[in-house]
């Protein structure tokens, strides 16, 4: 026969249980739903790509195989899998190409690091090439309405 739990011990266990319930990763309530809705399935399927067709996400792919993959997602959701777990499963089964966003590892970092470098680099290059005005431009000039075209100073000059 087991010893009865003492009051302090019980308080400690309850406290730990409360703490654990807060600390442990929260799973969305739908993950426990025995019959996940089409919208829940599509939300994940739209982030995965059909491994056998051309650039079609799984939620809109009309193939029978894709229907089966959507059913698989539904089953996995019903079993309580998280979105991350489902995506990882598909990537492990069919390769990185099923993920709409390439995983952040190895050479793929180029995709995530290059764009900010391009934008900031272009911005810095432009600003560096713009001349600072010597003094404040007079505020009196008005906006021209017709495209007055300055004389073409270099008109028709040959280089050679």
């Amino acid at each position, binding site marked *: 026969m087991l010893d009865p739990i003492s009051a302090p011990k019980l308080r400690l266990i309850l406290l730990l249980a409360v703490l654990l319930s807060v600390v442990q990763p929260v799973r969305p309530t739908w993950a426990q739903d025995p019959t996940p*809705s*089409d*919208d829940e399935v*599509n939300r994940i399927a739209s*982030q995965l*790509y059909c491994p056998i067709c*051309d*650039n*079609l*996400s799984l*939620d*809109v792919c*009309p193939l029978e195989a894709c229907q089966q993959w959507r059913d698989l997602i539904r089953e996995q959701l019903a079993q309580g899998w998280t979105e991350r777990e489902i995506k990882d499963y598909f990537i492990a089964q069919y*390769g*990185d*190409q099923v*993920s*709409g*966003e*390439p995983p952040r590892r*190895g*050479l*793929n970092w*180029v*995709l995530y690091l*290059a*764009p900010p470098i*391009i*934008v900031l680099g*272009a*911005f810095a290059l*432009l*600003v560096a*090439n*713009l*001349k*600072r*005005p010597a003094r404040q*431009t*007079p*505020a009196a*000039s*008005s*906006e*021209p*309405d*017709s*495209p*007055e*075209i*300055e004389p*073409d*100073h*270099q*008109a*028709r*000059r*040959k*280089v*050679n």
Partner: protein
Amino acid sequence: MMATLGYLTLALAFLLAVYGLLAVLLGLIQKTVPWIESARLALLLIFPLVTISIASLVFLLVELRFDVAYVYSVTSLEMPLYLRLTALWGGQSGSLLFWSWLLAGFSLYFGVHKWRNDDADLLPYALLVVFFTLGFFLMLNLFMEPPFERFWHLPDGSRVLSVLKPQGAWLLTPADGQGLNPLLRHPGMIWHPPALYLGFVGFIVPFALAIGSLASGRRDRRWLELSRPWTLIAWVFLSLGLVLGMRWAYDILGWGGYWGWDPVEIAALLPWLSSTALIHTALLQERRDGYARWNLALVLLTFALVIFGTFITRSGVLSSVHSFAGSDIGLPMLIYTALLSLSALGLLVYRWRDLRSSHEPEFTFSKETLTLFANLILLSILMVCFLGVIYPILSELITDTQITVGPAWYKRITGPLFILLVFLVGVCPLAAWSGTNLVRLKKRLLIVLPISLLVPLVAWFSGGVRHGVVLAALWLAGFSVLTLLADYAGRVATDWRRKEQHPAAALWAPIRRNHRRYGGLLVHLGIVLMSIGIIGIEGLQQETQATLAIGEAVDLGGYTFRFEGLDHREEQAGWLVTEARLAISSEGDPVGTLYPVREIYPNMGMAVTLPGLQSNLAVDLYAILVDWQPISQDQATFRIFYNPLVTWLWIGAGLLTAGVVVALLPGSSRRKDVQTVQVEPLAGQKLR
């Protein structure tokens, strides 16, 4: 007979292109005009020859001559006349011939233009580019993708494909063709590919003129003046091609969207981005003695991207819903693309020092600085999109890993840049070309800013929008619309006060006086309205999927969609059409009915989804029939979308087109010296 005629005229056109190329080279080496003149005359003959060739193919398509392999592969007995005509660009070899025909058409410019004496030095190099490009595409059509090959029975019982009749063979004519891919059996097929091709091919004129200018060692902007209408024409067709493609995708691909960030879509967007940048900095070069390098680089980049896009679409190097079936033209196209791009780049680098300018733009609140920032954003988007297109190829080459770069990646990176562009469009009318009038700016801002704030307020209270980024984007778009309208209204008011004109006359006067400026304003207004449509569908789209029994309903976006029943019918050639009825109501009041359709083509093993759609300026209600119970027929699955504001995307595209037409009107704001001057005949002149 017609197939032989089409083939022979195509072969003749190719020979003339080769002759033209050699004649221009001889003319340049010997520095005499007669060879150049002879090449120019050869060019004049190519277009009619390719026209006869394409007319032959059209005849064969219309007549359903299934003994011709191309006709067999893209047409079938049940196809109506308009689809037989559009089948011309429904397959690889036909669309290549269409491309070559358009190219020959645009190239006519170099043959018929009355060249001024001081422009004559542009012509030989421009002709060189044109003949090289024409020769290449005609060569592809002639040797690698011939559209006139026929089926033949040989005496030994075997079958061959050949244009000309083999010894002792007889024609094999199948009873019916394979027919056009069902996805291409849509009115969008009439307009989308031709508009896109016109946009692509049209850039041959500015590109050849730029090469002419660079190769002849000129450093003026004459090439820009000559190419301006062609750049605008190509740009507007490219814009229309993109928008018509969006509409087609929206109407037929059945995912509730208009842009799937497919590699081929992006490949068409790339030259649009670079040519948009070019149109803006070309304006700067007209006003300032600078930007020669920049504009030349942009036009070379644009044409290189056109060829790159063609390569991506036709080589099968990338998987895409747009790709043509596997073909052997990938390698020659790659060689041509590399040769053209590297030669153009080499020429630009060679002339780089000669093209330097003393003009240094200032960092002030001016149209010039804002245009440069807009250029920067356009080119940043271009580079990011280019990276997204080529990265899967690089990944496979380097790490042997197949990668998909999907919409989420593109949207996250380009979204903020597009919003910044919309903001710049709104800010630009507030600035002057140099030295902005701060008093007037303050006055205009005091009017525009408070009114623009009404846009997010209306979206919040009336539309129930709670998404911060969407509210901010809508505010920026509203601000831009107002500054553009205020710019025009300010000019109308001034005219009215000063000249005491009739209000209607004052409305038209600024446009008549300066159609380029107000045409441009209309284009910008169109772009901002398009952005409102994009903000709506990207930021506020709602969707749901539900399986409904007859009489059951589902709610979305404040509307109720009730399933009323399914109709089945069998159409020509055994297609099975299933049409559902979804009654829409809002707070109990009937609003309309959606009729989503699913067409099944048993002989092709394909199904096409046509959404049921009801549009107004505020929202599109859009439903797709996903599946149904074939036995009981009393239950069906629908995917329903609530797409706010998307109609503004199509309205904006209409305004954009109208704006370019206004900007191209002949009128007072054109420079006198840009207009054609009486020209001396070319023949007999010595090249400088």
